[in-house]
């Protein structure tokens, strides 16, 4: 089990924080960054209902509709899927002030650099695009960062706004 002082990122700590924040549903498209440390464990977790979608913008709507039912959900996707879903995120989460909670793996991010310093365009532009849309975001680079998950999800549902957790490295199982 990773500790808060490790440089690693614990998938178990992320999952526990997500569950503690009342998330019942995980809506996902597979992402190689989070596959082993998050998505496979989630798919086996009896406390979470996992819905696999074909395309990420489906998940934007599903999470939103679940929020209308007072159910909490997390959209777990890759940066490429985030970029593909900008219109749905803009329209449904931002313009409609809905509590869409996203977790985005940065496929292709180099170790030991911040996402905005990446040589990969698809990595480098994620946080600036969140900023442009006014979406609160948190970088999960090490296990200690997972402390932001609970309060951020609570605030998203309490205040009706989207939030995004950007995964800075592959989480360990």
């Amino acid at each position, binding site marked *: 089990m990773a500790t808060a002082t490790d440089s690693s990122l614990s998938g178990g700590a992320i999952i526990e924080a997500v569950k503690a924040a009342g998330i019942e*549903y995980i809506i996902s498209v597979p992402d190689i960054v989070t596959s082993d440390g998050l998505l496979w464990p989630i798919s086996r977790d009896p406390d979470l*209902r996992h*819905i*696999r*979608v*074909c*395309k990420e*913008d*489906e*998940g*934007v*709507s*599903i*999470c*939103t*509709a*679940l929020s*209308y*039912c*007072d*159910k909490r*959900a997390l959209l777990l996707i890759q940066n490429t899927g985030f970029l593909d879903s900008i*219109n*749905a995120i*803009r*329209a*449904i989460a931002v*313009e*409609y*002030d809905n509590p869409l909670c996203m977790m985005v793996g940065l496929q292709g991010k180099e170790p030991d650099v911040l996402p905005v310093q990446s040589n990969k365009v698809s990595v480098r532009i994620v946080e600036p695009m969140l900023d442009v849309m006014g979406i609160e975001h948190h970088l999960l680079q090490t296990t200690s960062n997972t402390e932001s998950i609970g309060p951020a999800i609570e605030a998203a549902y309490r205040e009706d706004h989207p939030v995004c957790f950007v995964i800075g490295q592959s989480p360990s199982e």
Partner: protein
Amino acid sequence: MKRMKRDAALKIIAGHAEDSLVVAAYQAAFEWIVIRPSDYNLIATRAMGQVSSHCLGLAVGRPERRVIGFDGDGSLLMNLGSLVTIGDVAPTNLFHFVCNNGVYEANGSHPTPGSDKVDFPALAKAAGYASTDTFDELDDLGARIGDVFARQGPVLIDLKIEQGETYPQDYAYMHSAEHRAAFKAALRES
């Protein structure tokens, strides 16, 4: 091809909708909120193609409630993968209607791709929907709509339609925070 006036078809369905949660988009939405005014209507899907996925979220979140979606053919073509997702999740309370007029009515009435070939019921069936049907005559719809709602979902119904009467296009209401708040409040209270 035979087609039904859209508002006439919606009136027949409304007679059997009871207190269903209803998600609708574009022209069908504007007509539906006049034909069946209710806080159980959600016409705020905003991004084109997202009716079916909103329906899935509602159907999963409120499995005891019947969920009806009024999609468009152009809209569903933008989110065909949702047929597969819905078929996989298989919510028994989901009734997915496609108001199929073969054109992008809100965008100049240009034909939808494959409008003379695409078979939405066949696509839905192949994706795992429990049952499908097609209606192009009002008398047939009226005679069999009760049977449709007696089925186990997910059900996809292809409605061959054309524009009927003109209804107010209340975009301000569609996108208002008050509309979404009323829908959420109605769900909480039921």
